[in-house]
């Protein structure tokens, strides 16, 4: 299977590549439009800062390409946030696939920012979560979040409820890191590759 991992600068692509290897697949890291278009599955990984990530996307003209892709696309962490309308991080307009805007966790409600560690996902509503029980733990590291919205396919509680995964048509986004969430995270990646 041809699995493209989109390279937009600082994204942590290596751990996604290794997670795919553990599932018996080989991914390739690229920002080449042709290679992305011809892949069967596309992963938009995420570690980094939103404004500089979007700048890179525009430089590689990926901001035009990604929204018209027809194959399954999975955004992880910042990758999920970049698939939304906009983000407060660097006041950045994003790719506008999910109809939600990313906000910063408030500092004054007794939660630490970033959220860092293992938290549960529930209200699971997608084939992405086949074999995953509600309240399974996933690993999260983030300072920004999407509010619960109509495209939410999982919810997590950190001070309040927010959308920890989103789906619209062939686009999937997860705020947690499936590549770092043990065997259940691997299961979610496996489910994505089966789509």
């Amino acid at each position: 299977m041809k699995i493209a991992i989109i390279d937009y600068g600082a994204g942590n692509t290596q751990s996604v590549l290794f997670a795919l290897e553990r599932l018996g697949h080989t991914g390739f890291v690229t920002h080449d439009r042709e290679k992305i278009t011809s892949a069967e599955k596309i992963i938009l990984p995420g570690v980094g800062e939103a404004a500089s990530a979007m700048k890179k996307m525009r430089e590689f003209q990926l901001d035009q390409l990604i929204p018209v892709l027809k194959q399954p696309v999975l955004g992880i962490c910042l990758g999920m946030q970049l698939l939304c309308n906009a983000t407060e991080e660097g006041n950045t307009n994003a790719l506008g696939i999910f109809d939600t805007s990313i906000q910063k966790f408030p500092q004054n409600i007794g939660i630490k920012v970033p959220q860092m560690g293992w938290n549960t996902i529930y209200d699971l509503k997608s084939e992405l979560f086949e074999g995953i029980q509600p309240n399974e733990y996933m690993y999260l590291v983030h300072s920004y979040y999407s509010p619960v919205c109509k495209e939410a396919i999982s919810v997590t509680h950190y001070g309040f409820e927010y959308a920890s995964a989103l789906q619209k048509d062939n686009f999937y986004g997860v705020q947690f890191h499936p590549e770092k969430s043990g065997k259940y995270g691997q299961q979610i990646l496996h489910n994505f590759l089966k789509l």
Partner: protein
Amino acid sequence: MLTKRIIPCLDIKNGQTVKGINFLDVKEVGNPLELAEKYAASGADELVFLDISATEERRKTLFPLVKEIAKSIAIPFTVGGGIASVEDVNLLLRCGADKVSVNSSLVNKPDLINELAAAFGSQCIVAAIDAMQVDGMWKVHLSGGKIPTEIDLFDWAKEVEQRGAGEILFTSMNHDGVKNGFANEALLQLSKTVNIPIIASGGAGKMAHFEEVFTLGKADAALAASVFHYGEIGIPELKSYLKNQSIPIRI
């Protein structure tokens, strides 16, 4: 609910795991890759690797080791030891590290925190702080605890947060290796001083110490080495003990 993290720490020297007492008396305790796999399988929430080799040895042994570990385990891990530049971090992340822990270099060049946070995001920058309480004052120490400074622990913690560190790994040198409990008072004060997560290190000897570090010390994560390496505390037993004490824990 976000759970408290249990983090085994592997001190690495020339590709082997070692652990000292009060920062001295280093002896080997095993193959780091085997230990990493064992800890990941037994429910560790994260792993930390601190390389204490000399610079030249580190180049030869650390990067291949990080790559091997990243290939085999599916939980997050942090690598630290001798990191002094954006390029050092870039190389480690390319090998598959999720976070880096930076210590002395940040004190010597505080702007490095801003540079690293801008380049890679705050979430992968762990500011490691070694401190010792002397006459009631917590003073930051450098180079594995060998060099004392006049810098106050709490002032420095505030500064690393403001400059963009995503997490603080605080080791109390008074408690490290002594197995008599964590520095809970200092940890509590730290968690009132900053709003980023705090990993407590130094002092774990029995399971109740972990409970105390979360209830009294308000730590977000507890790091330990020898109690895990020598099999004195098993991670599954520790986690079910903590869950029974109503600490939020991933089982």
